[in-house]
């Protein structure tokens, strides 16, 4: 099992371009902070509930959108996205993120 994970990390370090590593670290930060927040809400306090939900879902959403960007711009996935250029995927990313955060802010009230 450990060897598998070792293989994995090794392969990741070697094969992934540095832009993607940057994206991945951003994803990791988002993921960790979301988990932290969730644990906090679960164990200590989740009031006001809408504030918690708003920030938690916006983190999850941002995570998802960043993953989307990463998948769409990955040349190895290009055959899936015949109509979507990397530039287009970035535009999509910006648009969807704006929409997401607009919703989150409005939800926070």
């Amino acid at each position: 099992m450990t060897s598998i994970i070792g293989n994995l990390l090794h392969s990741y370090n070697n094969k992934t371009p540095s832009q993607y590593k940057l994206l991945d670290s951003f994803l990791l930060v988002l993921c960790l902070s979301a988990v932290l927040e969730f644990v906090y809400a679960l164990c200590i306090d989740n009031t006001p509930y809408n504030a918690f939900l708003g920030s938690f879902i916006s983190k999850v959403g941002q995570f998802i959108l960043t993953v989307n960007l990463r998948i769409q711009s990955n040349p190895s996935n290009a055959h899936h996205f015949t109509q979507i250029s990397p530039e287009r995927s970035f535009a999509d990313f910006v648009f969807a993120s704006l929409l997401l955060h607009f919703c989150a802010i409005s939800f926070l009230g």
Partner: protein
Amino acid sequence: MAGSAANNTNNTLKSLLKLFTLLAIAGAAISSRLFSVIRHESIIHEFDPWFNFRATKVLVNHGFKHFWNWYDNTSWYPLGRATGGTLYPGLMLTSGLIHNILHSINIPLDIRNICVLLAPAFSALTAYTTYLFTKEVKDARAGLLAAIFIAIVPGYISRSVAGSYDNEAIAIFLLMFTFYLWVKSLRLGSAFWGAITAMSYYYMVSAWGGYAFIINMIPLHAFVLVLMGRYSPRLYISYCSFYTIGTLASMQVPFVGFNPVGTADHMAALGVFGLLQLIAFSTLIRQHLPSKQQFDTLLRSVLVLGFVVGVAAMALASHKGVIAPWTGRFYSLWDTGYAKVHIPIVASVSEHQPTSWPSFFFDLQMLIYLFPAGVFFCFHRLSDSIKGEASVFVIIYAVFGSYFASVMVRLMLTLTPIVCVAAAVALSTLLDNYIQDPDVEGEHQVENKETDHNTQHNVSHNTSQKAFTPKNKKTKKDTSISSTREKVIEKMQEKAGIRAPDARLVVLINVVLMLIFFVFHSTWVTSNAYSSPSVVLASKTPQGETLYIDDFREAYNWLNQTTSEDAVVGSWWDYGYQLAGMAGRTTLVDNNTWNNTHIATVGKIMASPEEVSYDILRKHDVTHLLVVFGGLLGYSGDDINKFLWMVRISEGVWPDEIHERDYFTPRGEFRMDEGAAPAMKNSVLYKMVYHRFAELFGSRPAVDRVRQIQLPKKGPQLESLEEAFTSENWLVRIYQVKQPDFLGRSFKDAIAFEKAARI
């Protein structure tokens, strides 16, 4: 290049033809919904629309802020209702927005007309959306057919005639639009379209409680695709961007609140979301792992762990009550007998009854037997790498839609769009085969030397002709037949088998006839069954003149004009919205039915003897009581026929005081005549309904025309209530609750004293 130029013009011609066809369809959709306006007037129909209309007026007259925080203390007296937070505001905001836009460009259209015409206008949009959706499933030809079907199919018209200003009026458009956007975003794998889908979903959430259908259908579709091994990054992107933005947005609607993260109906979506994360993550890892065996080990351990943790969390959450259990209405979807036993108030609504077989044919006509064929063709199309996913969606929708529609009459509405889509797929596949033949096409082209058109042009030329065919079918049937025949004769000369000219002719004539009958049937159903406002009843005199029975408005208007503004009117809940909308008076209960106890209280008032009821009436400050009585006219939807529901609902709350058994005779009959049970005869409702009715007949025996019974010569005596108004045909009767006697006598004594004094 000449070829490409010709191709270009042909494309323009094609899109122009399509545009005109769609415009004609929109025209047909709108005009077929105007029967009621032309026959009657521009008026809001039924019951719920009156509330929506009243809420819209609040929005338009007092502004958005007031509407959002609207606390209506004229309904559910004395509790009141926090209306702003307990309604789906999408409908009102839509018409309010249209109203404001029109007024800002100085078109002072009356808000009532906007509300009345909203449903037809949106039905045109629905037709267009169905076209788009079907285009995603098959092609533009099927799309146009589907648009025609949805435009005039009675199953949809039943909820969208002019004046039927209900949530469904815009919800079906939003349903189809969201599904179309979903299928499109899935095909493209675009986060942009996913986000747009989420916005459309948000609009749907704000407009109709049926949004739960979407939030279960789309995850189900995604799940089935995963099971079929058709997971792709496109699925991940479109689903996850839709789900996160959609969930966050949907919680902005006050009435929905935290439901999307708290109730069981939304958990499937969350589960699929989690599943997709796992799959995406594992795909990523697979890229980085050299051997398949290593990956499998990892995957297995992660999946097992994830499943255990997930189930444990769900169980814990359900147990602790974090996730609300399924609601009663939901259970009644699975067990048709559930509502009757546990929630009589749901069962008492006629549109919550299971659907009868004839009504499928009545509402969908030929589409109902084209529907399975369409689903079959969708199975055929599964292998299509681009449009196969949409076919999967159609199949799932068809299966679940059929089930729900057969359980509840009103859910016929959600089935109708997919029936149209599937039927269009079936019919257009049939026409594809019989009008155009790829083999013959080739031969024909070789023979035909007079033009230098390339193949692409010829194909597109034919497609344009076909795109034209459906429209032809609708408008100029004869020319369609003749042109088809010419084409057939010209192109197919010596062919045998199923594609022989005669075979084609037979099939095509059949199809055309079917379409013609469909149009006739739809128009007939629309005009006869779905175009009555139900506020005004129209009947024909023997001389053929139209006679309007306008008793409801007569009585409501009387209340509005002659009673004091703070009058509290008690009535069975069916009339609550109309009372508030037309009479503008405070009501005890209305069609919102959120408080079962309050409704049971009204049931108790109606079912109890006067002495019991009077105290309840005084306690609730009721000044007037309204009952509907169809006995003189033969109107069967009156309060006597609803009486058993009143009894049942109040028995549910006061099992010690009200017993359904008491209202039947010892032999188990539910009678109104001489032999009625004592509890029946003493009930306030019975007394109010038949008060002085027998006197109307003079010396002849009094007959209740709904129940076809003879009534006793001596009618019931009212003591604590006095008749205040009875409409022209005795359809609506209003009673005033007397003030307590100023000498402290009982009403019986006071009446006896006055009688003696008069003599």
